[in-house]
């Protein structure tokens, strides 16, 4: 049971946090040997604007309880989501916060990274809609360092999911996120 790894991606409805979690689930369940995955979501009755979260559980064994109790990796893309979902972060977990929308980052007993996820999507890619792909790139770096899922598996899952004709755009956003997180992690380990 110690192999259980809990991931939560939270933000505002419309940011694509559910799709991002589905892709992390597929990257494990379909493209990684010996890893089980369960993905759940929680959202309000409104189509856009409400707090939205999605969770993925990884385990080497079959997974019973499908929700996160103390996430080992949290990616949070909005202040409201941060206020709602940050409190149960596991000790020593990795927390990635978007530095544009999360304006009041909390103090935590965890590895907290404040990264320009939304700004990268907006400025480097030119489309805020790929914010979830930038976040996935950052997540992929963490999952690689934990020896859970390799970035190629996440990329495969992305390419199988996104609409035809948008592959290059999404892949570019994913790579930017991966690069950003790699640089941050390298910086900290020095």
């Amino acid at each position, binding site marked *: *049971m110690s192999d259980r790894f809990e991931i939560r991606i939270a933000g505002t409805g419309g940011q694509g946090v559910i799709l991002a979690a589905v892709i992390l689930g597929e990257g494990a*369940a379909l493209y990684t040997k010996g890893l089980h*995955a369960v993905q*759940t979501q929680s959202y309000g*009755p409104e189509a856009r604007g409400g707090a939205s979260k999605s969770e993925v559980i990884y385990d080497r064994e079959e997974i019973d309880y*499908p929700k996160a*109790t103390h996430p080992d990796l949290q990616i949070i893309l909005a202040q409201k989501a941060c206020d709602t979902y940050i409190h149960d972060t596991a000790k020593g977990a990795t927390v990635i916060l978007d530095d544009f929308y999360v304006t009041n980052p909390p103090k935590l007993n965890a590895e907290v990274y404040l990264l320009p996820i939304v700004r990268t999507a907006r400025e480097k890619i030119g489309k805020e809609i790929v914010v979830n792909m930038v976040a996935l790139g950052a997540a992929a770096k963490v999952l690689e360092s934990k020896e859970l899922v390799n970035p190629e598996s996440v990329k495969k899952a992305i390419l199988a999911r996104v609409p035809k004709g948008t592959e290059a755009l999404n892949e570019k956003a994913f790579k930017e996120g991966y690069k950003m997180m790699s640089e941050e992690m390298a910086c900290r380990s020095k």
Partner: protein
Amino acid sequence: MSQIKFWQGNKAVAMGALAAGCRFFGGYPITPSTEIMEVMSEKLPELGGKFMQMEDEIAGIAAGIGASIAGEKAMTASSGPGISLKQELLGYAYMAEIPIVVVNVQRGGPSTGLPTKVSQADVMQAKWGTHGDHATIAYAPSSVQECYTTTIKSFNMAERFRQPVLVLSDEIIGHMREKIVIPDSETLEIIDRKKPKVSPADFIPYKADDDGVPPMAAFGDGYRWHVTGLTSDDWGFPTNKTEEIEKKANRIISKVERFREDIIEYKEDFMEDAEIVVVSYGSVSRSALRAIRVLREQGVKVGHFRPITLWPFPERQIAEISKKVKHIIVPELNAGQIVLEVERIACGKCEVHRKSLINGELYKPEEIMTFIKELA
């Protein structure tokens, strides 16, 4: 060749239905069941089936009943508010003996309640929602894999017993994605309704075989029969004769009750030496199992019993358990429904503990651990 997929529970229900031979879907969208309808709208035309989005939930089940009378395997899916609307037609299908599968992806109620939040509060509605005596068959899947398999079984039971069968999913199970192994279609057991063996001239529409189930002709096959919600004789026409009324009323119950042991399914874990047993189903069983696994490592003698068929309820099994254990805990996402059955069956032979969570959330394993530790 079996295939591995990462599917949502709702998608697995739809794909299970198609694998069972469902070729008609009538319905109206509602969270958290809509994905079933979406998949059916995409896949049915590819398979030569028909998909109809109707003007409301009542028309959705009505169209399904019509398609079933015309010989197709049919399904409708909804959630609480829509399932309430379908009750009258559900009764019609019990009375006229029309196979149909009705999926309820449960959300919080009453009324429109909580569209995006989980509940298990429609368990008694599944049994008694439509008026009049009838025998209910209802499955409660607890995984994406089981969404697939129990939907296939629901079609098999609907076809075998000529009546509605319910899939009682819930928001967590319906929206959750996990790994599923799709079996080779040739390995699936598929049951189709019995067709009449006699010529149209000798056909008596509601004359039952020894198993209590009359063979069913499809409209258009050349067999003439009358379909009504009124209590009818073997010819399908309304009757007021007491012996005919009694025969029909008894037969639509006994055709299922006689075979309850064939229908009932359940799963037991850690039961051998258990002194405390948790009885839970659907999404809650996943929290319960985690709690039990953790406590087993600490040496607590706790086991798990999970009914897969809520109706018919595994009475004999619960009766046996109640003789062996000290406590049965029944955590549910309702104010206490299946616990009423457990209390009735245990009948004082052990203590039965009712636990309810009705705030739109799923039980956390820690909460169920607390219930168990209080008794251990």
